[in-house]
C-alpha cells in the first residue's frame, strides 16, 4: 500500500490532530512486536525533529499504525472524517 499517497489526500489542517491520534494508537498498542525497526527509527527521527505532523512523518505513522492496529486505524480515520482514506485502507486490508 502506498501510504504516502493516502497521506497526500489529508488536508494540512488535519495533520496535527491525525499525527496525535496515530501516535496515541502506536504508543498504547499491545502489538508492539509488529513494529519494524526501520519504521520505529523513522518515527523517532521525525519526533526528534518535531516533524511528525508533516507528510513524511504522517506516512511513517500511518504505516506503523496499520501494522500494529489496522482496525483501530480505520476507526481513527473515520472519526476524523477522513472517510475516503478510511475506505481505501479498509479495502486494502480486506484484500490483504
Amino acid at each position, binding site marked *: 500500500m502506498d501510504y504516502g499517497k493516502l497521506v497526500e489526500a489529508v488536508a494540512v489542517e488535519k495533520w496535527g490532530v491525525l499525527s496525535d491520534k496515530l*501516535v*496515541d494508537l502506536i504508543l498504547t498498542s499491545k502489538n*508492539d512486536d509488529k513494529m519494524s*525497526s526501520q519504521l*520505529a527509527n523513522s518515527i523517532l527521527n521525525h*519526533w526528534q525533529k518535531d516533524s511528525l505532523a508533516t507528510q513524511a512523518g504522517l506516512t511513517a505513522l500511518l504505516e506503523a499504525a496499520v501494522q500494529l492496529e489496522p482496525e483501530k486505524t480505520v476507526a481513527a480515520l473515520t472519526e476524523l472524517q477522513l472517510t475516503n482514506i478510511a475506505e481505501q485502507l479498509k479495502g486494502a486490508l480486506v484484500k490483504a
Partner: protein
Amino acid sequence: MVKFGIEFVPREPQWRITYYVIQAERGGFTNLWVTDHFNNRNVYVTLTTAAIYTNKITFGPGVTNPYLVNPVFTAQAVATLNELAPGRVVLGIGAGDKTTLDCVGVEWKKPLTAVQESVEIFRKMTSGESVVYDGEVFKIAGAKFLFKPKGKIPVYVGAQGPKMLALAGKIGDGVLINACHPKDVEYAVNCVKEGVSEAGKNFGDVDVAAYTSFSVDEDLKKATKAAVPVVSFIVAGSPSQVLERHAIDVKKAEEIREALKANEWGRAFGAVTREMIEAFSVCGTPDTCVERIAQLVKSGVSQFVTGSPIGANVREAISLICNKIIPNFKA
C-alpha cells in the same frame, strides 16, 4: 530549584521508551533513569539509544547492582556512554534485591561492603587508573582500560535502609532514596545527612533524589488504577515495621503477598487500600501531586523522580507533569 527525573523500565520496547524520553527532555525533565534487571531489555543499549536521540538530559542506570555486573564492566559501559554524551552520564548503583538475585543463583552477601567497594572500583577505573583491589567482596588483580575515560562521572547510590542511606550520603555524589511518603523521605534524608557529615561534605553538594512510584491523571480513578499493581508489589515486599509505620494492616499485606505468589492478580490488586497507595506512591491529579512533591522538597530533596507507572497513559502523564507540575517548581 528541584530537578525532575523520570524512570523507565525496559520491559517496554526501545522505540517506545525513546519516544517518551524525547518528550520528557523537551518538556523540562533533567534526568533519565533506566532500571537494570536481567529479565528486561539491556539498560546500556536502552541508554545508548536515548543518548543518540537527546542532547540535554542527564542519564544513567537507575540502578545497577554489583552482584550481576562486575563493577569493572559497569565502569566500562558507563565510561563508553560518557564518550557518546560527555558530561550527561551518571552511575546509579545499589545493592540489588534478594528475590531477583535468587532467580539467577547469585548470593546477596555483604550489601553495604559490595556497594562501597564497587563505587571505589568504578571511580578508580573511570579515572583511568590501573586497578589492583583487595576487598572483602571484590578482588581485582590488575585492570586498566585501553582507552582514556573522559571526565569525572557522578555516582548516585540507591538506598532504602538506614545504613545504606548513611553510606550513600558518605560516598555518593547523589542518593536515590527509594521512598514516596514524606515521613519516610524525611527519615531517609536525616540518615543521608549523617553520612554526609561523616564524610565532611556539605549536604547541598549531594543531589538527593526521591525515587518514587508515581501516577498522575486528571481523573483520580485512572491514576489510582494505574498505581495499584505497582503498590501491591511494594506492599508485598515491605517488612512489617515499614507497614506498621504507615498503620497498614500486616494481615492485609500478607494476603496480597500470597495472592501475588499464586498469580491471583485480581485478588492481590483488590486488596490494595487507599492507605497503601498514600504510603507507597505519589498518586493523584496534577494538583495533589504538586502538593505532595512540595512536601518532599521541604524535607531536603533536590531531585524528584517519577517512577513507574507514571500514569495510566504514559504520554499524557508526561505531558501533565511537564505542563502542570514542573512549572510549579521553577525558581
